[in-house]
Structures are given as structure tokens and as C-alpha cells.
């Protein structure tokens, strides 16, 4: 037994219409444990989930707060719909903190059981503030109404060992293991700024602990900086009515309809139940959208080696329910069982690898030029157990590889690592260095923005080139989609609150292939509607996938198939059925818009959030190098003719590159103008008081921030 440093008993109460109406505050510095009231104002303006996270974070920090300040908080919350078991994808936890990479709020969402179990344990949100001197474990027992802060003792560091140990410790028996969820990170989170948080759930079919990741923005690094080794919640007795919804019959009816759609249509549509999100790897490759070798091109002839079929046929266990929360029949949390590791501290051991998700295969595979499924799975496993955000890690490593191959840094600069594209051994060794806190891994672990500075100042690299090819915006690394030929997606990455993560807007096909949004106004509408709509999932505790990774059979006959109108109505109906309110699909968007604009103003309060912070690396907009241009020469030459009326046959390659760049940068500027206008912001990206009033967010605390910028 570990030493208990502080304990706290609380009264068990009943959730009413999706809310406990209280939240939990824990300060790991002075070991305070307190309850806070969730007010009607909070519910009206911020709804829950990410909204609650940002509300609490605003009050915890000042403009001077940085990621490692004691007052920085990790806030996590489910949402009013979160935890219902009748509809797929309701188990998300939303998190926020001041990011290690961006100095502004990062938000991240994650599956696993923690969010719903925290809510069923009596808490609509959890704030963790302060900084401990020694490693701690926080334990919340939702059946006993008991919280303890304990010394971490001799618990292991890496995720797969730590989650197993704590699940074993806190479960009363094998059946009880599914009542336990652990939040933790791994050894690399102590040495890098890209540490993520793993959220566990017990897989009763495999009889092993599985993990999902809150990946972006360094949440795991902050967690370890606070000297928290793990956070455990235990709640036994999950059932379909724990939210005590206003109208459970409606939820049941909609849920049955949705499960039938998945059953009947998934195999014909995306095959989520067989391969999960990695189903799109070859589609991205075929449409020139799979980022390859640091986003230089959008595809490679070798991509077939990491095709979905390879993972399905050779690695992923089939026929097992792979939902990361009860009732999710989309079942996309795929896993490779008995995978034998060949490198690192666990070499020779057989493990279960959670994944690969699309981002893992695209980032660790194609973007590193490593078209080897075993490399993808091994790197996937080590990133997870070490607590590394795979998206940032992959994009950072791709940047390093290109810098090396272009002679910007040398093998000596990298401590002898031969980090050229396709060198799996060197890439894996770099991961191990990040975990050990050694060598070049310490530099790479600082993230792309800091690496650029180090490479220029210490190694004499070309600053302009590094700014062009370093795929970060606001300090956060790009996720794994090639945006060069989709102006709307360029905005979907750069004109975001937290940075270039695709969860705000994924418009590549709608824009580039379908050509459904040809004008600036069309694109601006899409960059208004979709970010607002998708923000709503984060207020509710919902996963995005059941919205459009499965669609009704007749969705294509609707006026707006990309919106999936039937599923939007499902969400409206479920929200009303849980909370007893009567919103419509327009109010749904306004609910999101309030929180989205709050986050924008929060960024401004932290000294960012203006137009200059929404700029894009040129690699995301167009071809930086001669090789990139020549690889798609016919396309770019045609664009010079058709878009600019220029005859490319009279131009040198340098002239063509320059003309293409000038045109594309202007297009991005015009897009930015249109998007800001559509969102109700000034030309500098500041929400106007009029717009804030229109959406019911003309709060004095927000007006005080925006007024100096008007």
C-alpha cells in the first residue's frame, strides 16, 4: 500500500439531466481538495466539456502564466451527453491547459472510460492545479465517494506497465477491471514538450488494458511537471440511465436506428469496424493527400505497403468488439495483438499495440518515408507507452529528416544518428532517446518551432528555408494531411484556435476534389460552419466519428450531404432528450460559437490570437523547393496558365516558383479576410463587441480583452 497524503470524502448524489452540478478541484501543491458549484450561467454559456475546461482555465491563469507555472491547470470534463450508452461515441473526455508548445490554451479530446466514470462518480469537471515536489497518484472512488492523494511509491513509468499495475491494484477482481480507468503518460513526457496523456480502458475480450490518447499540445508534459504519476477513477455500475435524462425513450429510439445503420452500412462505407480510421491511407495516397517525406508530396508508390489491407490481414485482430466506451458499435479502436518488439527497452516482448490510427500510419510511416507496417506499429507502441504525441513527434521527425537531407544539419549535429527518410532504426532510436532524455532526442523533443531556432543559431541552418518547411502554426505541429491543393484546408489548419489540428475543419475533398466551395465566400462559410459544428462535440463529450464516418443510406440524396442532416438532427434530439431543453440545429451552432469565440479571446488575452498568429508555413500552401515543383510540374504549370494567365514556357523554374508563391500567399490572405469577416471578427482576427453581443457573449471580461485591439 502506498502512503496516503490526503483524503477527502464527498456525498454521492444523483445526476440530473446530464449534470452533477458540481466540479472537483485538486491542488497537488498544497493538497487541497474542494468542490465547486456548476452554475446555471456556466451551463447556459459553456454547456460542458471543453466549454467548462476553458471557463475554469481562464480563471486559473493570468496572461503571464506559462505551461510550467504552478497555476496552470489541466482541466478535464465530459459533457451533458457524455456517458450515455445508447448512442455510439459518447465516451470522450475533453481537456484543456496552457500548452507547452503554443503558450495559449490547448484542447484535446480522448476516448477511454475516464470521462464518463468521472462524471458518474459525481463530477462534471476536474481541475488539477499546483505542483507537487514528489510523484503522486490521485484516486477517485465514485462508489464510496472517496478521494485520495497518494505517494507514487515504486510504480513504473511507462504507460503499458503503469496502467496494468494500477488497474490490477484498484480492481477487486477480473470483472471489476472495467470499472477502473487510469490517466497517465510515460517517460518521454519528462524530457520533451510533446508529452501526451493516455486514458485507459480494460478490454474484457483481450483481457488487457488498452489506451486512447489526449495527444496534442503537451498535456502529458504538464502532468509530469506537476509530478503526477497517475490519476485513477473507479466506478462500478455503468448503465444506460445514469445521466437521468429527461426523455430516455427518445435516446433509445435514436440509438437503435443508429446502430442499425452501422450494422447495415459500415462494410459498404468506411469499414471502421475492420480497420478504424486507418481506412483512408490509400485514399489519401491516391488523391495526392498523404503527406510524404515532410509534406513534400502527397503520395508515394510504396504506400501500398502500409495500406489498410496489410494491417487487417497481417496484424489487427478481427472479430472483437473494439469500442472505447460502452455502446459504441463503430468499434474503431483497433489493436495488433502479440506484436513482437525489436528495439528499445522492451525488445523481444510481445505487446498489444493500440492502432494504427490514420495519423500514426501517415505520420510515422509515409511522412518519415518508412513504408514498413512493422515500423509503424513499433513506433506507434513506443510513442504510446513513452507518452509522446504521435502527430507532433512524426511531423517533428520528418522536419529533422528533411533538414538533414538538405544539408541544413549534419549527422554530427544529431549525435551520430543517420536520420534520413526511410531509416526506421534511426527514427526508433530517436524515440528511445526522447524517453531516456538523451542526445539529439532532447533537441527534437522541444518541438518544431524551437528546433528551427536551435538549428539556425547552433548549426547555421537557413532560417528562411526552415520557416518554409517547418510544419507548425502557433507552435503546434501540423496533423497528417497534405493541404497544398486545398485553400480551404489551408485555412482549416491555420485559422484555428489551438493550431493545425484537423478536428476543426477537414475540407480537402469538399474543396479540392468535389469543388463544392469555389468562392472565397463559400470557403469562409465552410470555415465558419464546420469548426462551429465540430466544436459542439467537444462541449458534449462526443466523438466526431459517428457523425460522418457512417452516414444514412439516403444521405447522398439530401441537399447538403456533407453536413449529414439526419445525424445533425439526431444530436439535436439527443441533447434535448438528455437536458430537457428545446434547441434546434441553429441554436446548436450558437452554443458552439459562444465557446469558440471565448477561446479566441482567451488566446488574445494570452498575447496571441491575432492575424499574425494565424500565418501558415509556405510548405502548407505550395511547393517550396525545385523538387516539389518538378514532381507536380504539369499541375503547377497549368495553374500558372489558368489562374494567372502566365505562359510557363517562357519562365525559369525559379520564376515559376516565385510566381506560384506570390499567387498562393495572396489567395491565403484573401481567404483569411473572408473567414474573419464571416466569423464576425475584425481584419486582425479580433471578435467584435457587436458579434459577441449577437451570440450572447458580450461579457465584461471578454470586452475588456478585445477593446484595446479594436
Amino acid at each position, binding site marked *: 500500500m502506498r502512503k496516503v497524503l490526503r483524503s477527502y470524502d464527498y456525498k454521492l448524489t444523483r445526476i440530473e439531466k446530464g449534470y452533477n452540478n458540481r466540479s472537483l478541484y485538486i491542488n497537488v501543491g498544497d493538497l487541497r481538495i474542494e468542490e465547486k458549484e456548476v452554475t446555471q450561467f456556466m451551463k447556459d454559456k459553456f454547456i460542458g466539456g471543453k466549454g467548462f475546461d476553458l471557463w475554469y482555465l481562464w480563471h486559473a491563469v493570468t496572461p503571464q502564466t506559462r505551461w510550467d507555472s504552478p497555476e496552470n491547470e489541466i482541466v478535464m470534463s465530459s459533457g451533458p451527453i457524455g456517458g450515455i450508452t445508447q448512442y455510439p461515441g459518447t465516451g470522450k473526455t475533453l481537456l484543456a491547459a496552457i500548452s507547452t508548445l503554443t503558450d495559449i490554451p490547448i484542447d484535446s479530446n480522448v476516448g477511454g472510460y475516464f470521462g464518463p466514470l468521472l462524471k458518474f462518480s459525481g463530477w462534471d469537471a476536474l481541475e488539477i492545479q499546483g505542483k507537487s515536489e514528489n510523484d503522486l497518484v490521485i484516486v477517485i472512488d465514485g462508489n464510496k465517494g472517496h478521494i485520495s492523494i497518494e505517494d507514487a511509491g515504486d510504480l513504473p513509468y511507462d504507460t503499458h506497465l503503469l496502467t496494468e499495475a494500477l488497474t490490477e491494484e484498484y480492481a477487486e477482481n477480473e470483472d471489476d477491471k472495467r470499472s477502473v480507468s487510469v490517466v497517465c503518460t510515460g517517460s518521454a513526457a519528462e524530457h520533451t514538450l510533446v508529452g501526451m496523456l493516455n486514458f485507459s480502458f480494460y478490454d474484457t475480450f483481450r483481457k488487457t488494458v488498452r489506451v486512447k490518447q489526449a495527444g496534442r499540445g503537451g498535456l502529458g508534459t504538464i502532468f509530469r511537471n506537476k509530478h503526477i504519476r497517475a490519476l485513477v477513477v473507479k466506478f462500478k455500475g455503468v448503465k444506460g440511465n445514469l445521466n437521468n435524462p429527461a426523455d430516455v425513450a427518445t435516446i433509445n429510439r435514436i440509438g437503435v436506428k443508429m446502430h442499425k445503420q452501422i450494422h447495415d452500412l459500415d462494410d*459498404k*462505407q*468506411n469499414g471502421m469496424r475492420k480497420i478504424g480510421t486507418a481506412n*483512408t491511407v490509400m*485514399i489519401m495516397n*491516391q*488523391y495526392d493527400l498523404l503527406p510524404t517525406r515532410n509534406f513534400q508530396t502527397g503520395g508515394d508508390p510504396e504506400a501500398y505497403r502500409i495500406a489498410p489491407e496489410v494491417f487487417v490481414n497481417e496484424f489487427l485482430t478481427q472479430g472483437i468488439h473494439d469500442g472505447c466506451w460502452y455502446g459504441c458499435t463503430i468499434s474503431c479502436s483497433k489493436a495488433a495483438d502479440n506484436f513482437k518488439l525489436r528495439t528499445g527497452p522492451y525488445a523481444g516482448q510481445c505487446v498489444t499495440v493500440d492502432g494504427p490510427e*490514420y*495519423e500514426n500510419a501517415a505520420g510515422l510511416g509515409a511522412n518519415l518515408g518508412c513504408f514498413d507496417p512493422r515500423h509503424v506499429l513499433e513506433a506507434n507502441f513506443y510513442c504510446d507507452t513513452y507518452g509522446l504525441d504521435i502527430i507532433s513527434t512524426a511531423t517533428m521527425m520528418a522536419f529533422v529528416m528533411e533538414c538533414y537531407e538538405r544539408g541544413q544539419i549534419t549527422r554530427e549535429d544529431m549525435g551520430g544518428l543517420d536520420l534520413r527518410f526511410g531509416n526506421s532504426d534511426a527514427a526508433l532510436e530517436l524515440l528511445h532517446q526522447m524517453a531516456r532524455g538523451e542526445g539529439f532526442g532532447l533537441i527534437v523533443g522541444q518541438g518544431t518551432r524551437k528546433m528551427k531556432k536551435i538549428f539556425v543559431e547552433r548549426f547555421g541552418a537557413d532560417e528562411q528555408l526552415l520557416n518554409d518547411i517547418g510544419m507548425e502554426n502557433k507552435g503546434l505541429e501540423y*496533423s497528417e*494531411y497534405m493541404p497544398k491543393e486545398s485553400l480551404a484546408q489551408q485555412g482549416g489548419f491555420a485559422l484555428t484556435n489551438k493550431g493545425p489540428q*484537423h*478536428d476543426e475543419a*477537414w475540407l*480537402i*475533398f469538399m474543396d479540392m*476534389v*468535389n*469543388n*463544392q466551395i*469555389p468562392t472565397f465566400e463559400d470557403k469562409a462559410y465552410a470555415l465558419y460552419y464546420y469548426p462551429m459544428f465540430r466544436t459542439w462535440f467537444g462541449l458534449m463529450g462526443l466523438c466526431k*466519428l459517428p*457523425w*460522418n*464516418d457512417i*452516414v444514412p443510406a439516403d*444521405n*447522398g*440524396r439530401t441537399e447538403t*450531404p*456533407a453536413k449529414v442532416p439526419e445525424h445533425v438532427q439526431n444530436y439535436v434530439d439527443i441533447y434535448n432528450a438528455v437536458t430537457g431543453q428545446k434547441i434546434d440545429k441553429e441554436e446548436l451552432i450558437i452554443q458552439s460559437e459562444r465557446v469558440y469565440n471565448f477561446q479566441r479571446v482567451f488566446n488574445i488575452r494570452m498575447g496571441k490570437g491575432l492575424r499574425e498568429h494565424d500565418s501558415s508555413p509556405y510548405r502548407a500552401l505550395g511547393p517550396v523547393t525545385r523538387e516539389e515543383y518538378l514532381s507536380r510540374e504539369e499541375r503547377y504549370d497549368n495553374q500558372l496558365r489558368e489562374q494567372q494567365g502566365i505562359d510557363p514556357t517562357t519562365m525559369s523554374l525559379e520564376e515559376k516558383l516565385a510566381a506560384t508563391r506570390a499567387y498562393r500567399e495572396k489567395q491565403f490572405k484573401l481567404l483569411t479576410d473572408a473567414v474573419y469577416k464571416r466569423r464576425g471578427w475584425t481584419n486582425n482576427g479580433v471578435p467584435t463587441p457587436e458579434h459577441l453581443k449577437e451570440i450572447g457573449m458580450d461579457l465584461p471580461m471578454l470586452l475588456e480583452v478585445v477593446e484595446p485591439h479594436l
Partner: protein
Amino acid sequence: MIKVNTRDHPWQEGMTVRGVIEEKKFTFRHLVVRVNGNFIPEDQYEHHVINDGDNVMVIHLIAGG
């Protein structure tokens, strides 16, 4: 000349919906096709003839990230 997703595309005698999809290398399988605004079911792709001047929309219903 026809329009495919609002962009010009050369027309040929006897061209079908399937032919357009293949010429454009639209390999994604979950498509919604409309010709002059009319929905074309997938089982008609082989037979539905495209006429000169037609407006063909081939919408990829891909969920993505």
C-alpha cells in the same frame, strides 16, 4: 465539353458515368453522382449516358479527419 465538379472535361460519344469516374481517377468508392442535378444510383453508373454539355457532380462522401 462537359463539366465535372464545375470544371471543364472533354466529352466523348457514348461516355457513361462510370467512364467519367474512371477518367477522373476517382478511386474512392463512396460517391454521390448527380447529372444536371438528378441523382444517379450506383447501379446506373455503367449505363447512364453523359451528353455533351452535361453538368456532372461526383461528390466524394469521405469523412476524413
